[in-house]
């Protein structure tokens, strides 16, 4: 059995750590490229959302490299993602790239269910080994998220374009190679130090923008047309609340996170959970505004149902909180130029607002 999985940001490092510890052979799909996307677009139904298409491209390329089994998480709705694996399996069945699909349904109550599902996957691995593997994988995801958070914060301060990204990439690789939890923590500390040691413009008072929306678009640069980087290059400090480690805590470990307070913030606008990250998008926008973000960019795949509901109430949030919001829906047709123009206009507007507010304060 050679296992593969879909890409989502640097999740590959986390999944690889988990399976390597358990002695399962893993094929990491090649990094997402134009080719991956065009493979996915050719296979997938045209109305499906972008993540499904990129996933399919990942699977196809991984099968070409010898993978025969796909592991992915499932879901119980109402977001489309919960049924992805079924559709993807049927699609690949009609091609020469058929795969076996192993679905990790998120546990209903507590993380014991998750451990049990992983045990089924690995067969003879002992409970101790499984717990150890999960702990290392989780530690890696926490470290990666911390690095990414710093990347989003510091990119706008770069004096030489590309510096922070380079250091980030290098330390992601080092985290990938780390063998145990102590190693991971050491690499993380070094990585943060290395980032801060770069020639950065610490005097800068950048515009701070919050990024909210659907998880794939937030975590995977290819799912949002590299939105975070584009904002960074425009001199914007980006803040985000949703990271992979938090998702793991909420959905796989079933522990309490800040999600509850985020949902409470959204409750006056969206009264119940509507699937995906719809309610959280609204709550996060409010939370980020309270934490000092001057504007919010909402991003999701085109036709994403929960994000459309969130978008519908976002105008009211924007009005109530005096918070500029830009909503972007991304699909395989999204052009670089159009997106850049919209972002530039949005950032220009925020800068002007900021100047006026500052002038008002100084008077």
């Amino acid at each position, binding site marked *: 059995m050679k296992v593969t999985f879909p890409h989502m940001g640097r999740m590959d490092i986390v999944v690889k750590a988990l399976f390597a510890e358990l002695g399962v052979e893993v094929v990491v799909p090649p990094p997402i490229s134009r080719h991956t996307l065009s493979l996915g677009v050719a296979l*997938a*139904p*045209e*109305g*499906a*959302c972008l993540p499904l298409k990129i996933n399919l491209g990942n699977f196809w390329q991984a099968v070409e490299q010898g993978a025969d089994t796909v592991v992915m998480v*499932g879901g*119980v*709705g*109402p*977001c*489309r993602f*919960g*049924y992805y*694996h*079924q*559709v993807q399996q*049927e*699609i690949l069945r*009609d091609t020469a790239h058929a795969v076996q699909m192993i*679905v990790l349904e998120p546990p209903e109550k507590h993380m014991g269910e998750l451990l049990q599902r992983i045990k089924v996957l690995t067969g003879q691995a002992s409970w101790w080994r499984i717990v150890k593997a999960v702990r290392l994988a989780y530690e890696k995801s926490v470290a990666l998220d911390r690095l990414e958070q710093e990347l989003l914060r510091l990119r706008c301060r770069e004096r030489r374009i590309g510096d922070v990204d380079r250091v980030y990439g290098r330390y992601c690789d080092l985290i990938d190679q780390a063998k145990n939890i102590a190693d991971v923590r050491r690499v993380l500390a070094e990585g943060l130090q290395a980032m801060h040691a770069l020639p950065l413009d610490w005097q800068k008072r950048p515009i701070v923008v919050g990024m909210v929306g659907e998880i794939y678009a937030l975590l995977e640069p290819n799912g949002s047309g590299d939105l975070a980087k584009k904002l960074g290059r425009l001199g914007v400090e980006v803040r985000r609340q949703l990271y992979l480690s938090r998702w793991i805590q909420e959905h796989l470990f079933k522990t309490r996170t800040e999600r509850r307070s985020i949902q409470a913030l959204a409750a006056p*606008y*969206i*009264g*119940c*959970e*509507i*699937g*995906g990250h*719809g309610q959280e998008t609204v709550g996060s926008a409010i939370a980020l505004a309270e934490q000092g973000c001057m504007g919010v960019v909402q991003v999701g795949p*085109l*036709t*994403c*149902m*929960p994000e*459309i*509901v969130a*978008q*519908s*109430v976002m*105008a*009211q949030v924007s*009005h109530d909180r005096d918070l500029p919001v830009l909503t972007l*829906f991304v699909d395989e047709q999204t052009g670089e130029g159009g997106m850049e123009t919209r972002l530039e206009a949005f950032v220009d507007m925020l800068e002007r607002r900021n100047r006026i507010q500052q002038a008002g304060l100084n008077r």
Partner: protein
Amino acid sequence: MKINWLGLAQSRPRPTVIGIPRGLAYYEYLPLWRAFFEAMGCQVLLSPVSNPAVLAQGKLRVVDEACSPVKIFFGHVYSLQGKVDHIFVPRLISVQEGTYLCPKFLGLPDMLRSVAALGDEQLPLLTVDVNCRQAGGGWSDALRTVGKQLGVAASRVRYALQTALAMQAKYESQIQSGMLLPEALAPWEKAGTLLLQGPPVPGKPVRKNQPINLPGEEGPTVVVVGHPYVLFDPLISMGLITKLRKRAVAVRTVMTVDGEEAGRATEHLPKRLFWSFGQQLLGGALHWMGKPLEGMIFVAPFGCGPDSLIGDLVERFARREGNLPFLLLTVDEHGGDAGMETRLDAFLDVIEQKRQVRSATVPV
């Protein structure tokens, strides 16, 4: 106090008027809602049949990304504004145990409220959660809550609920026995207070845009798969059903397939769909595939999340099944009539050709 033949007291000078928008869940639950409100002594006002003015109202207010059924629903809600005391927009989370509806159904009242608040408009929404995922959270519970919200006595609510559930059961059995939905729905769409006119009798719908003299069903048997709020909305579906019947096609829908049959048809799938309306489409389509059929049309609104996956699955299964002609029609509010006619003609030509080939190869 006046008492009518059903034993309903009419003590209030002016009954409360409840508006029901003609869209989305309307096609599934109108008898339930209308019987319930009328049995409680309310008056029911339906929004007009979908027309371009209604759609324009909706498009003005809802985000571009929403699907056409949601846009037109907004139009229906706003066409009731100012004419009624309450507009009934329940939040349908789950109408069947362990399932969901599309997120847009879940967020519908929120979306409406937000649009109204932003425009400083008065939109008297009457909202209740319908959530079968919680114990006792089905329609009975939801409607009891509505009765309480309207300040109706509990005994009367109980009576109204009984009447409503019976009417709904009758309506569903009519549809499952093969009656096309508009015909079963027609008696419930009449003006006035239905329950005072005696129990409703099903009949042919009489609408201005529908020809009364349709040809018989000597043409091919074609199953049309799609949500009722798409198929039977004359504007969204661009009169697809009428167009087919004008061409003498024997139209069948997936609404005739009951939940159990649909469940059996999807048994071989490792994972059941978690959208109950979607399950009806998928299960219904697969159920019909086992029957003698000459074609299948899947109608999906542009941007519909569940249908983007279900449509693909149905098409895939149809292709594996053999050579069943399959047409996937994506509709939105920019639809052109000529394009639709051409595609239908081409599709029916394919069926006709297959018929000829089959009759030529049958050994004499």
